């Protein structure tokens, strides 16, 4: 049992005993964190169920003109993080780079957890989820980016669960096969998710090939940040010492994060400059809303400072060895990415479709701010990620990894 559940031939009684011992080994802080995240998840589930049964219009602040609110942006946040975790972890356990080997199991587990959190929040956003389960299968529309996105993420989830089980059982060849197919599925799903927005001719703020490229690049960035963040937290939870291999791994993840922050900054700058230079109307209004309008704080504070600039400075200053700095930088990046998704999705809808007609009521940006119920569901998604991560650390014995 030295490596998770890889010990074959273990009896159920021994397994139960081992699990109880592990679950009892947490500190007080650990149990408080489990309790808080569990309660958040529960509150989110109740809020989502309440909205679904009572009608979204009674508790959500979404409107006819802005039908997708914070829950869709939260969904995007979670599933893109999942893609990032899957991508960065694949460098080690699928493509064989020893640098990233130590985080393989944890990253796969977290990719599963974040994807499930994404499904958790979107389930509260779909108005008639029961029909989704039926008609997504018996009446698929193959021209729909949403259909492909949902199907591929569903497929990726199943494959990653199998991959994780194979990793636990020490069947690495099967794990690599499942992991590779899951990786392809995650990338394709991520592209289709971006396509949901990027293919809409009628929404100038989104339309074009920018978003699919931006989504995959930002996924890698957030994936690297998430690996650093959860790895450092996990070591604190488990009371593990930082091994040499883990130091090398975190240093590698830090390099990936720094590179991708620069890529995202580069993309953001050029998108802004090209919009200001050409002033394509729908896009210009949206970019100005971020630069100087009602989303300036969310853009400059959340997206630029918290997600990109501050982590960049901290990652560089940490030299890859200053653990607290690494933890702070990665935490800022991972949580800041939430604003990045929120800005992209909400602003795209606040620009009225009839803005060029100069008609009353549609000449300025529309207003949206999430309701209490929507915020609770969103927090429930975060709670779910935290809850499952915390349980996973004890349940799977710190996701210790053998080379494969």
């Amino acid at each position: 049992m030295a490596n998770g559940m890889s010990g074959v031939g273990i009896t159920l009684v021994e397994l139960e005993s081992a699990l109880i011992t592990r679950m009892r080994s947490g500190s007080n802080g650990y149990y408080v964190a489990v309790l808080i995240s569990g309660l958040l998840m529960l509150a989110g589930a109740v809020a989502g169920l309440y909205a679904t049964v009572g009608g979204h219009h009674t508790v959500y602040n979404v409107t006819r003109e802005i039908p997708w609110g914070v829950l869709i942006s939260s969904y995007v946040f979670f599933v893109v993080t999942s893609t990032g975790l899957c991508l960065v972890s694949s460098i080690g356990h699928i493509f064989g780079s020893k640098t990233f080997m130590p985080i393989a199991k944890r990253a796969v587990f977290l990719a599963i957890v974040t994807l499930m959190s994404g499904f958790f929040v979107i389930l509260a956003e779909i108005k008639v989820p029961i029909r989704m389960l039926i008609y997504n299968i018996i009446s698929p529309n193959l021209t729909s980016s949403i259909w492909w996105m949902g199907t591929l993420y569903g497929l990726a989830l199943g494959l990653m669960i199998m991959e994780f089980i194979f990793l636990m059982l020490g069947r690495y060849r099967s794990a690599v096969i499942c992991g590779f197919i899951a990786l392809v599925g995650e990338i394709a799903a991520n592209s289709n998710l971006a396509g949901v927005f990027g293919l809409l001719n009628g929404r100038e703020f989104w339309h074009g090939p920018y978003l699919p490229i931006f989504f995959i690049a930002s996924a890698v960035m957030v994936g690297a940040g998430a690996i650093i963040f959860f790895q450092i937290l996990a070591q604190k939870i488990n009371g593990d010492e930082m091994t040499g291999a883990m130091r090398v791994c975190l240093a590698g993840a830090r390099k990936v994060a720094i590179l991708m922050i620069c890529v995202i900054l580069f993309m953001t700058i050029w998108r802004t400059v090209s919009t200001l230079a050409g002033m394509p109307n729908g896009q210009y209004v949206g970019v100005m809303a971020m630069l100087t309008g009602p989303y300036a704080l969310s853009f400059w504070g959340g997206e630029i400072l918290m997600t990109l600039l501050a982590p960049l400075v901290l990652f560089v200053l940490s030299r890859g060895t200053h653990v607290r700095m690494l933890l702070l930088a990665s935490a800022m990046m991972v949580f800041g990415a939430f604003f990045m998704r929120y800005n992209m999705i909400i602003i795209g809808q606040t620009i009225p479709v009839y803005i060029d007609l100069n008609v009353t009521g549609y000449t300025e940006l529309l207003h949206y701010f999430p309701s209490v119920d929507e915020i609770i569901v969103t927090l429930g998604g975060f709670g779910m990620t935290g809850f499952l991560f915390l349980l996973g650390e004890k349940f799977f014995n710190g996701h210790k990894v053998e080379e494969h």
Partner: protein
Amino acid sequence: MIRNMMKTMTQNEGVEALSGEERREFLKLGLKVTGVFAGGSLLSLVSVVEKVYATPNQYHEKYPYKPHYSMVLHVDRCVDCEKCIHACAKTNDIPAYGFRTNILERQIPDGIEQQVEFLPVLCNQCNVAQCARVCPTSATYKSSENGIVMMDVKKCIGCLSCQVACPYNARYFNEEKWAVDKCNFCFDTRLSKGEELTACADACPAGVRIFGDISEQTSRVYREVHQVSRTVWVLRPEAGTKPNVFYTRG
């Protein structure tokens, strides 16, 4: 054709060697180009329909549906009496929080004789319907019989992607139906029962809304859209959806 022309041109010093067929092709191309740039002048041999569809397209000679339902809106006749909105709501059981058709208002402070204009809007029954493309379960689809963008209510999962995709704000979620609702030219409530007009067109006292089969050359919608001297436009042509709702004045 252009490639052949270029090839011929590079092989010959002059145009003497051009065949009669190639000369005709070249002249046709010239006429089309002239037609597009002349903005519907009488010299153009290209139908005005190409312009109202925003791009040269395959519907030049043939409309894809039979009947191909369409509407022409005479915006200068609209006085915002809202009888169309009320008739639509009554006929199609539209709840107070939703609408299938609406009237937008445009203030023109520096306008001469008129400082306000009303713009009726509804589903444009687009030939390239983004709503139908994005729907994951084909709950919304383009009817292959009459071109109307329909809803199969039982398949709607309420993801609202069609609402986001629609460039005309023509959709809303009907809480009673548990599905997105939209204008279907009153197909289920009137057309399928033998009526010839939509409720809004029937109710309009000013003759703003002209409804009919644009594939029928004797229909009023066909004659108005194809009338070369008339300026006809569509909303948001840049969205590339090829709408079947046209706007005009006069």
